């Protein structure tokens, strides 16, 4: 008697082979999927939430303050950086290019940096920022859920955080994601 006739007689028998095979393929799929994930990248808890209330001294003139409320009614981009941050240097030319396009005001959030170092850095590499604020103690950064630099937020006219990117912005990300998103939010 051949193998096929026995399994036809007993459908439970076919299951005994199919089920472990299905489980095996499910495992392979999950493992394969796991390879393409970046475990260091954390989803932001602040997406679609209002930007935290803050008031910080401006980098170039610490007697002037800037708060999130000052940006209300505009779509704006908040870029967290520091002169101590290597990836920020890599990202900087992209921000300069974005500033040149003039699609969005960029607010520089200078995180735990010496103001003189930060100012020197901007003179050397160019200043793409419409405004720069400095968070010397890093308390506002905690409210923003910042865990590394650079990080970039896009905030809409109502002051809601719509997008966050951890790590340097590439030219590709700017052209394919950020600019269309900003243009969409501006139309809304």
């Amino acid at each position, binding site marked *: 008697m051949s193998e096929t006739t026995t399994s036809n007689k007993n459908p439970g028998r076919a299951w005994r082979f199919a089920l472990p095979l299905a489980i095996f393929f499910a495992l392979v799929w999950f493992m394969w999927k796991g390879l393409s994930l970046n475990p260091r990248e954390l989803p932001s808890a602040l997406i679609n939430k209002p930007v935290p209330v803050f008031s910080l001294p401006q980098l170039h003139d610490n007697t002037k303050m800037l708060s999130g409320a000052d940006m209300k009614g505009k779509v704006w981009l908040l870029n967290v950086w520091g002169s101590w941050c290597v990836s920020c240097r890599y990202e900087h030319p992209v921000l300069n290019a974005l500033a040149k396009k003039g699609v969005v005001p960029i607010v520089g959030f200078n995180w*735990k940096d010496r103001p003189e170092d930060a100012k020197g850095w901007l003179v050397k590499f160019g200043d793409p920022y419409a405004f720069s604020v400095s968070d010397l103690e890093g308390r506002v950064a*905690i409210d923003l859920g910042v865990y590394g630099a650079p990080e970039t937020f896009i905030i809409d006219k109502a002051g809601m955080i719509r997008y966050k990117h951890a790590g340097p912005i590439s030219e590709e990300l700017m052209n394919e994601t950020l600019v269309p998103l900003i243009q969409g939010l501006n139309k809304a």
Partner: protein
Amino acid sequence: MATFIICASILTAGSLFAQTPTPTMPPMKPELEARLRKLETELRCLVCQNQTLADSPAGLAGDLRREIRLLAESGKDNEEIKLHLKARYGDFVLYKPSVESKTWLLWFGPFVLLAGGAIITWRVTRRKIVAPVAGTEISTDERQRASKLLDE
């Protein structure tokens, strides 16, 4: 130790960490220190992601420890402090994830699998004990032949 070395090497590379040190604060009461020390072991450092806030040498961990202390000194209890950080950094900041509908699989999945395994094992072993093995029964004819052979 290995995570410490990895963390320390990232630290010296300086790409992820702030340079201005966390401002020093006056010493705190021993009971508050003990309470916060325990709380810090239940929270994750966002930079050295496999370390607790208590163990991490990262600059951000220092900032978060200070933040926790300020919250505690303003009268917040441990649960409120955890919620405060969770609102900013998401579930990831908690070393022990909270029990919610989306974490049910994480919390109860292993027990479900264990129960499933136990049921299968029980059914398989029971079948082996109860089911007579085919061909072991002998007919009366055979029995007579056997006793006849034994008598000889």
